[in-house]
């Protein structure tokens, strides 16, 4: 090829590099989830530096559907301070045992389901007998420089599912929303539900 064509490559390379830089910058350093969930969560603010979709193994496979859908338990029964504290509250082992002292690992046959021994309940009993708390793996996490008061959101009528997804259907909980700042702001300015719009000043969350 002639010299004339050769040098035409250079601007092309520059252009490519520029595009690449912009894209990567826009995407941010996205940490890949342990398991990819196709549902990208609400309003698409996808994955920039967010472990969205992350769904780690829990020490006990707690079946939310069974408790919420089958038994119709309220979220607030276990996450008891979500409506009165910044901290949503994590059920004490005693709370589990409140029922599971009666409902032990040995599950009788029920309808067409044969009797079986629940491995998970056995684990639960172990923890209780050894007086050890259950080391749950944290999934939804905002950095320490973000102050997220649960009660204010819950009392404002923001449903748990808005941020945590349809937990009542999740056999294994995963991070539903990206939880990045744009995602927060988008809701605060009222794009999601005008009724939910809230102060979007930095100092409302960052201090």
């Amino acid at each position, binding site marked *: 090829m002639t010299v004339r064509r050769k040098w035409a490559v250079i601007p092309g390379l520059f252009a490519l590099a520029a595009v690449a830089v912009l894209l990567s910058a826009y995407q941010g350093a996205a*940490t890949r989830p342990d398991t990819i969930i196709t549902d990208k969560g609400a309003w698409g603010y996808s994955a920039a530096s*967010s*472990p969205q979709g*992350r769904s*780690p193994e829990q020490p006990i496979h707690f079946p939310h559907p069974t408790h919420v859908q089958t038994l119709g338990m309220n979220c607030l029964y276990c996450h008891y*301070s979500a409506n*009165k*504290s*910044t*901290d949503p*509250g*994590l*059920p*004490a*082992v*005693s*709370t589990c045992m409140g029922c599971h002292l009666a409902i032990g690992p040995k599950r009788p046959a029920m309808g067409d389901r044969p009797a079986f021994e629940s491995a998970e309940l056995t684990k639960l009993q172990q923890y209780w007998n050894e*007086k*050890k*708390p*259950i*080391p*749950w*793996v*944290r999934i939804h*996490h*905002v*950095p*320490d*420089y*973000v*102050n997220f*008061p649960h*009660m*204010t959101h819950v*009392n404002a009528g923001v449903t748990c599912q808005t941020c945590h997804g349809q937990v009542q259907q999740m056999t294994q909980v995963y991070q539903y929303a990206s939880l990045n700042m744009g995602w927060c702001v988008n809701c605060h300015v009222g794009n999601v539900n005008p009724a939910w*719009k*809230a*102060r*979007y*000043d*930095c*100092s*409302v969350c*960052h*201090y």
Partner: protein
Amino acid sequence: MTENSAPSGVGRREFLKILGAGSAATAAIGCSSDRVERLIPYLTQPDETVPGVSTYYASTCRECSVGCGVLMETRDGRTFKLEGNPDHPLNRGALCARGQAAVQGLYNPDRYRGPMIRKDDKLVPATWTEALQLLSQKLGEAQSAGTAGNALFINKHESGSFPVFLDRWLADFGMPAHLSYDSLADHAVLAANRQSYGVSWPSLSFSAAKLIVSIGADFLENWGASVPQQLDFADARAKLEDAPRFVYIGPRRSLTGCNADQWIACKPGSELAIAKALAGGSVESAAEASGVPAATLESLQKELAGAGRSLVLAGGSGAGALDLALAVNALNRQLGNVGTTVLPDQPITSFEGIATDADLRAALERMRAGQVSLLMLRGVNPLFTMPRAARVPEAIRAVPFKVSFSSYPDETSELCDLVLPDHHPIESWGDAQPLAGVISLQQPGMDPVYDTRQTADVLIDLAKGNQRTAARYTAANYMRWLIENFPGGTAAFTAGLQKGITSGSLPRAAAPAHVSNAPQAPAIDDTKGDFYLVVYPSPTLGDGSGANKPWLQELPDPVTKICWQTWIEINQQTARKLGIDSGDILHVETDMGELEAPAYVYMGIQENTVAIAFGQGHTAYGRYAEGVGYNPGNLLPVSFDAASGSLAWTATRAKVTKGTTFAPLVTTEGSARQHGRGIARSIPVDELPHLEMEHEEHDMPGKPDQSYLPGLRSRMAADAMGEVGDSPSRFQKGMYDPEHWSGMAKRRWAMTIDLARCTGCSACVTACYAENNIPTVGAPYQTTHTAFLHGVPGSNILKGREMNWIRLERYWEGGEDGGEFEPRFVPMLCQHCGNAPCEPVCPVYATYHSPDGLNVQVYNRCVGTRYCSNNCPYKVRYFNWFGYGEPARPQYAWPERMNWQLNPDVTVRGKGVMEKCTFCVQRIRESEHRAKAEGREVKPDEFTTACAQACPSKAITFGDAADDEWSVARMAQDRRAYHVFHEQLNTYPAVVYLQKVTHPAPKSAAGA
């Protein structure tokens, strides 16, 4: 904040089951969110607590023997902040720096983790069973051998039931009553008060007086009950025109002296003569003895006679201290102050039953003579607090078996054979009787941090284990014992716990029989040396028990502004004569020993006198105390004011020579002069009537009558908001629009600081450290790995890197030529300017102005260009030069367990970001959230900042300046109001200072 909920006592065991969730705050900025984090639930849900919501337990502060009421803010099983109990009659919600720092004693990384037993001459960890077995065996031996009578129990003095319980227990084991010791107590004054009034400490009414004369009585520091005294003194000064004039007489101008309108320098040892003169005695002889001009004394004598209600106080501990105190009491009676300003009928009972220094010395003599077979120590450190000449180690070694109940490894406990670490007061049950008829209760805020046990419980267990005494000890533990013996029983007790106080009187331990065979100190002029040596307890470290708490080490001495160091104060003129400059090493030598430390050239000290603060120079007291400063106790002889049995701190003269070397002073002070910049302003009281409020009209189009209000937006800011110009709708104002749905712009958070009240005690500074997770940077271990001054304590502060969001600036006015000078204190913090210079220069919006008038710093947005600090005229922005918040870094400011104190509401800043005062935005938001949850607006004065809340002078007022319901809005309209640098720089600060008011000597006394 939540009301003080009633703890039932049971169920608190569960508190500490939580581990992970609470410690989230210890992680630093920018830590990646994808590391596996565990959520650890409670095993059993404790009653009465909601995770993430603070519970406040009312208790009693045990840092000194006064016994102020505190509220322990506890969340998720951790007490992380002490606040004054507003319902407590003694401290009315205020709390001093040492009280604030108690939590750092609780979480101190160097505390004993558990019991220790001496094996082949060193203390090794042991189990409680072993330890208790050993002690009960020793007790048994003592009883069987009949040597129990030779046992000795020395306890840190405290009022309340414990001394009674202790004496009863000792009696049951056939042991003599315990020695209740407090090295800070002013024994001479106590003795004199007992003689004159029959009570140890009458409460003093400063506000009732027209003239206050203090002869060496540092009532704002360690003399008596400092917090209540300061509260009352500040109230008195706040009366402006009717405020009392305050004259301070003494060889050294202490913090108290710095708050006086007039300081009369006198020779050490001449106080008595002056007191006599004031009482009408011969002025000439007094002048001759004290070196004070006769005219000054005469005018003061006249003034005192004509003042009507006055208040004369005496302090000082030299030879003849008792005579001085008696003379002053007599003078008060003669002036008719008893009953008006001196109130023996409302005594402060905290000091009843204190053993004197002489008693302790007698005990030491007995030990040395081998007459003590068993020694038990709790909370006292005589090895450090007694002069080295007392040869305490020798005495202690002479005792065959020594038991220490100390929580911390200190000089004394290191010598003991058995250490049974006591609970920290925040972990213990107890009570106190600070005032007649008032019981102040003490309860644990949380489970023990380490494997310690409350001494009272240990004693009960021992008694139970002993067949002779078991019968008399039925109570399960000390808490039960307290309830059983509590006046009014369980009901009264639990009711009292709600507020932390209840009325009633506790039985009092038998008053100790004071020995009076102590060696009488010679008149100071008869001692060798060319300089008088004045040793005084440090206002921040007390008797040295505060030295292991970094907040107190980092808190600059209120007068000299020096921290992490021992310095030698020397008079300006004398220094000039001897060619001594600040920082030159001085060599001080007495018959007892010698000491070398850098000089601090000070106008506020008598000529030919050197003063050294007591409290530094520990050899064994943990990482924060060891290797910091020197102990002036090594210079003191063991001589007493025999009559009162108080150790003579001002006992000897010393030989002072200039060393060859130089050591920079670790001070936070740049220039001690204002250079006429009007930062700390004061006005003589007689000019007060003519004072007009500085009133700045600036007409804003659209807002015609916008007169000056703190924190309101400036014209330019308003312009940026589109409020200026013909079409205000030019700009989208967003939340900055006062009509915005969020209503955020309706509020203007602002603060007023009344310099007439401020005494410069610096409690606000420590409160701020406690509330806002501010790192301390001066500890010896933090100064390694830095590129300069490797390992010198406080070398980061030498580099100006202290992080005090609120600092107390202390400026001198006049006195360059050795004449009279006026100290001025001004707390300097972020002014939250309406037109802040720092905001437009930040390239990333990390600092900006919030709609509600805060100057916000967003840590996670900050990249650390530090331009904001360059552009801040007040220089109140602080930069994280090192990873103070990162455990992996050598400068980590919260070594393990200290990080349990971190406030979960406040981000711990990582390295490389700017930080500054936030007006306690976390408290603002918290109360807003609470108000929202309760469906209401934030109530006026509903909450306040940490500094305002702690201030023992009530000088700081915080609130919404745009709403007249808030007291700050009224205060900001005071005629004394002014703003620092506003005239020159147009910054529109949200902090309003109210001028200090001085009370010059009456014209008759001119020439004084």
